[in-house]
């Protein structure tokens, strides 16, 4: 029997689809990769082996993978402070990510960025971002650039429920609507704005916030990778064919705190029952079981993927630890680019 989610009107659990087997298996693999990467970071943080602080994506894996699996390699994303999942789903190397998180020269930014500033323009990753809502105008502008230059790329702007109350969210939706930009606003609503329930801080439904501007809104179960993927496919098709922006609100839940180590000050702000319920709706287990049931993958194949991804994350830790720390003098590099353009002298 298919259970229907009363709010979204969709089946409450992911199902296997007619997509190629390899693609469905790959989506499962990418969610597992994010899960194992983040779990490893949690352990490293606890042992004090990471400089700085991290915001983990555990529990939200279906959003990043559902969205990014609908994109082309040359499409772009902007991301958030909770961005490791987006970056991995867009194709980033976990070796270079881990090295960045360790502050090493083989990191994506040679150790200059860290968790909240992971960038790889060659993969269309325009950066995780330390400012809540900071990436929204940048992604909107990326879509403007592509449209102006006659390309059919799309840009996905990831942001959280907290960022939906930033002015730039409304401003950017307005600009995207009047200029019909190929941008997809993906709100990951994990229920908490830092340590406060989002419903106490946010009027109405986030998905409806584009409606007055004529931007279609799609509310999806963010723990259902198929639902996220299907909503994104529709939004991408609209964007690529010049029909403008879409807003997707994906309801999900973060298993860990706003940031690792929050137990030192945050107290118990989330009911245990709520946490247990959401953990019972593990997006990876749900999708894996659906694929096994449909014969898209066997349990041993699933186990094999998990073992391989776990080993790859271990290897990335070794890679990071073996990568040198940057020469302190590098702190003075990379401020300004030096090559001017044009032929006026």
């Amino acid at each position, binding site marked *: 029997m298919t259970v229907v989610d009363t709010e979204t009107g969709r089946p409450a659990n992911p199902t296997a689809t007619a997509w190629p087997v390899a693609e469905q298996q790959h989506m499962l693999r990418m969610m597992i990769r994010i899960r194992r990467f983040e779990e490893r970071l949690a352990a490293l943080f606890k042992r004090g082996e990471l400089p700085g602080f991290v915001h983990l994506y555990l529990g939200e894996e279906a959003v990043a993978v559902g969205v990014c699996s609908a994109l082309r390699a040359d499409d*772009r994303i902007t991301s958030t402070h909770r961005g490791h999942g987006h970056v991995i789903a867009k194709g980033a190397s976990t070796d270079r990510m881990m090295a960045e998180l360790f502050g090493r020269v083989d990191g994506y930014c040679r150790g*200059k960025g860290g968790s909240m500033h992971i*960038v790889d*323009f060659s993969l269309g990753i325009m950066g995780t971002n330390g400012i809540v809502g900071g990436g929204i105008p940048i992604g909107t*502008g990326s879509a403007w650039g592509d449209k*102006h230059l006659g390309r059919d790329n799309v840009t996905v702007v990831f942001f959280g429920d907290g960022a939906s109350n930033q002015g730039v969210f409304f401003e950017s939706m307005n600009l995207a609507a009047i200029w019909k930009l190929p941008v997809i606003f993906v709100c990951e609503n994990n229920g908490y704005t830092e340590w406060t329930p989002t419903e106490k801080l946010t009027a109405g439904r986030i998905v409806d916030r584009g409606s007055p501007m004529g931007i279609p809104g799609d509310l999806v179960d963010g723990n259902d990778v198929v639902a996220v993927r299907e909503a994104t496919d529709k939004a991408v098709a609209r964007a690529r064919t010049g029909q403008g922006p879409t807003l997707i609100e994906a309801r999900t839940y973060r298993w860990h705190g706003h940031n690792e180590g929050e137990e030192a000050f945050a107290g118990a702000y989330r009911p245990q029952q709520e946490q247990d319920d959401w953990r019972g709706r593990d997006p990876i287990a749900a999708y894996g079981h659906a694929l096994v049931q449909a014969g898209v993958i066997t349990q041993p194949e699933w186990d094999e993927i998990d073992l391989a991804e776990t080993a790859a994350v271990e290897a990335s830790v070794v890679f990071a630890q073996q990568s040198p720390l940057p020469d302190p003098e590098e702190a003075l590099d990379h401020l300004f680019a030096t090559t001017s353009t044009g032929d*006026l002298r």
Partner: protein
Amino acid sequence: MTMTAQSSTSEPTATQRPTYFVNAMKEGLHAAMSEDDRVVVIGEDVDRSVIGATRGLIDDFGPMRVRNTPISEATFVGACVGAAAAGLRPVVDLMVGSFFYVAMDQLADQAAKLRYMSGGQVALPIVYFAATGPSGSGAAQHSENLHPMLMNVAGLKIVMPSTPYDAKGLMISAIRDPNPVVYLQDFVLGGTKSHVPEDAYAIPLGVGDVKKPGTDVTVVAIGATVPKALRVAKALEKEGISVEVIDPRTLVPLDEDLILSSVARTGRLVVTDSARLTCSAASEIVAMVAQSGFGTLKAAPQRVAWENVPVPFSPPLEKRVLVQDDDIRRAILATLA
């Protein structure tokens, strides 16, 4: 089109015409837009242009390259970061310098830092320009000059020309530069006029200009204080005091060598700034000379800048706060006392 930069104090040639400051900016914009079709101009009402620097560009380049934005400074300042990364070369008219405050996160935390944070992965060729500073009873929210605080945001180049000639050549260089550049057009200079070559020419960023040579005192003047300093220098000449007036023209990068070598000759330094005194560019330049040229100084350097209050509305109040010719004169005489 190729021309070498020449001093703005040189005699006008056949191809030069008397040109308003804002029109010189427009000529720079026009040249850069003709040179490279990735250059686009956006901002509020840039089609008609309140201040004038973009007026008429839409006739030559059309509404997709001269594009009006909603009044959403934070968003259009930030959108240029994404657009530049995608391959455009955006030029943004913020209209009034004070409006930079509205967009501060996108300017200071995003545009200025993305290249550095990414380990140099990307170049972001963006120009943010605005009419700035007091315009005559503009009151506190339309009179700000943000160059001092923006100098402290690593990752932004800052241009502040004082003549139409410099305005054109620096606009072209700012647009051709592969980095975010803040270009500040002092309000009160917008309607000033001088000879500007018709052809396009570029003035490199980071090269200051001796606006008047002299031997007794070095006056480094910024933006709207340059013509004031020149007026004072001319008057003092009659009293037998020879003042050298230097316009750095760009504050980031700053032509430290030009300033230090002038002070090495004169032994005396006054810096005038169109900004509040605390942490002004004047403060920075005086500190730089005190640190790197202390041995050449014969007298304590002087700073001439605004009082540390918001710029008030009523004319006598405004006058009391801003830099007046007499303030500069007194500071020069103090170094000679």
